[in-house]
């Protein structure tokens, strides 16, 4: 440990106002990207199953025509 | 290579070759531009106006003005070129000429280059010729006038070439103007840095030839790459 006490560590020997915001913003960006991509995936899969159920209810009208197919 | 061969084959078959395609497009574009005289003058008036605003906003003190003159003239010229870019392909896109142009047997890059040259002849070149007049008003030392004109001549050609890529990418978009500046301005930074920096050095009486050569190298690089990139961008703008 490069600090004498935990209080010193939190205070970063006077540089707390610079070190902590930098860490929070940069690491926060990483966490935000991770969270958003996981939530997005859940939402998309739910959307897909909702689409499927809607189609199952109305077998005559398929939603496939409106959604483009990609190779 | 194969495009070049195709063009020579065209000549053999009695169709226009590379050079004919280039010169015909250049001639047509220049004629169109000279037909609209008022539009031709717009970038120049804009250039002069921006330069006029700075002494009003800062101070009429000639030592201060002489100090900032290289950067100021360069930024104003750059913005004038930027404003004129949207018209580079817009009219031809709207009336369908562009589609015909890309159907021509000549490679798109050559014809796009002709349009860019026409654009430079009607914006960059007059801006460079006008610049000493405004430089005098900003109290730029007389011995650096030649260098100022030279950097603007070479630099504005580079600006036209790089700007053509942005104009081609945004020509199919309804409100492409603001987006165009967002795309192009960061790419303009090196030209501005070298252009204004060289004039500054010239004011201080330093040797500027090596840096001028670097500006020439930037022009050569953009001459090689930009017409083809702009041609590819035009194709996708027409598809979309």
């Amino acid at each position, binding site marked *: 440990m490069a600090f004498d006490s935990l209080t010193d560590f939190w205070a970063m020997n006077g540089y707390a106002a610079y070190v902590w915001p930098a860490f929070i913003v940069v690491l926060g960006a990483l966490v935000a990207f991770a969270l958003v991509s996981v939530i997005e995936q859940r939402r998309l899969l739910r959307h897909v199953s909702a689409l499927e159920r809607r189609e199952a209810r109305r077998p005559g009208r398929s939603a496939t025509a409106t959604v483009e197919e990609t190779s | 290579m194969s495009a070049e061969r195709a063009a020579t084959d065209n000549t053999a078959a009695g169709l226009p070759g590379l050079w004919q395609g280039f010169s015909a497009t250049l001639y047509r574009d220049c004629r169109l531009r000279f037909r609209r005289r008022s539009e031709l003058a717009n970038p120049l008036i804009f250039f002069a106006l921006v330069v006029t605003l700075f002494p009003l906003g800062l101070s009429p003190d000639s030592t201060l003005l002489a100090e900032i003159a290289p950067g100021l003239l360069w930024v104003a010229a750059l913005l004038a070129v930027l404003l004129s870019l949207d018209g580079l392909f817009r009219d031809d896109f709207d009336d369908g000429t562009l589609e015909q142009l890309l159907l021509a047997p000549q490679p798109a890059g050559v014809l796009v280059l002709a349009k860019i040259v026409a654009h430079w002849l009607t914006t960059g070149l007059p801006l460079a010729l006008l610049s000493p007049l405004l430089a005098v008003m900003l109290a730029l030392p007389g011995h650096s006038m030649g260098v100022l004109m030279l950097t603007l001549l070479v630099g504005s050609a580079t600006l036209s070439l790089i700007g053509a890529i942005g104009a081609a990418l945004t020509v199919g978009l309804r409100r492409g103007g603001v987006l165009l500046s967002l795309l192009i301005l960061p790419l303009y930074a090196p030209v501005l840095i070298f252009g204004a920096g060289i004039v500054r050095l010239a004011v201080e009486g330093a040797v500027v030839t090596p840096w001028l050569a670097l500006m020439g190298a930037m022009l050569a690089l953009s001459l090689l790459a930009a017409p083809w*990139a702009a041609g590819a961008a035009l194709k996708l703008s027409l598809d*979309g």
Partner: protein
Amino acid sequence: MWPIIHKLGSPKWFYTMSGRWLPFLWGIGAILITIGSLWGLAFAPADYQQGDSFRILYVHVPAAILAQSCFAMMALCSVIFLVWRIKLADMAAGAAAPFGAAMTFSALFSGAIWGVPTWGTWWVWDARLTSMLLLLFIYLGIMALRGAFASRDGGARAAAILTLVGVINLPIIKYSVVWWNTLHQGATFSLTEKPAMPASMWLPLLLMVIGFYLIFAAVTVARTRNEIIRRQPSARWVRALAQGERNGL
């Protein structure tokens, strides 16, 4: 050659394969960054000149490295997309762009904060900061251009062309900004210029950089997977996937 490229370019194949790696990318990345942060924040010795403010280096440098690597990766994807028309490459480039912009902004933000104790000011027109700022604008331009097109393919091709133009320009921008900086003789000492860092200082940095790369890979893969679902929600395998997910939950 061709079968491999087409297999790699198949969204279904990519989706199933990447599903296996993804947890490891997230997990190892998170572990490395946690260890690196704790090590860098608490155990690495303080710098003899800058004191504890130098610890910003442990997030500033990885963010700056990632900002540039991300652009290189996007350029590679753009070439693959433009030459072989592999849509997966475009999805990956599109997925990476916001992350690259975020890393560029992070590097600028942490650099500005670091500037206060080091230079006594938030912003210095230093060569690195300035070229980073221009890089951020290029990222924003690419993202805006992709969004401005009504057709997905048009936006993809436009973004790819602009990325390639940008990648040719970036070294020129960097060089010109350095030249400009020496011309004006601004701040000449740089933030990261260290004469021989001891291992206790650079090891945590190494962990952080590797961790950032892994998280970058994970974010790009995860966002590409989302894009695959978004583009073909009616493909049979996507349906089966959604069903499996629902039963699993």
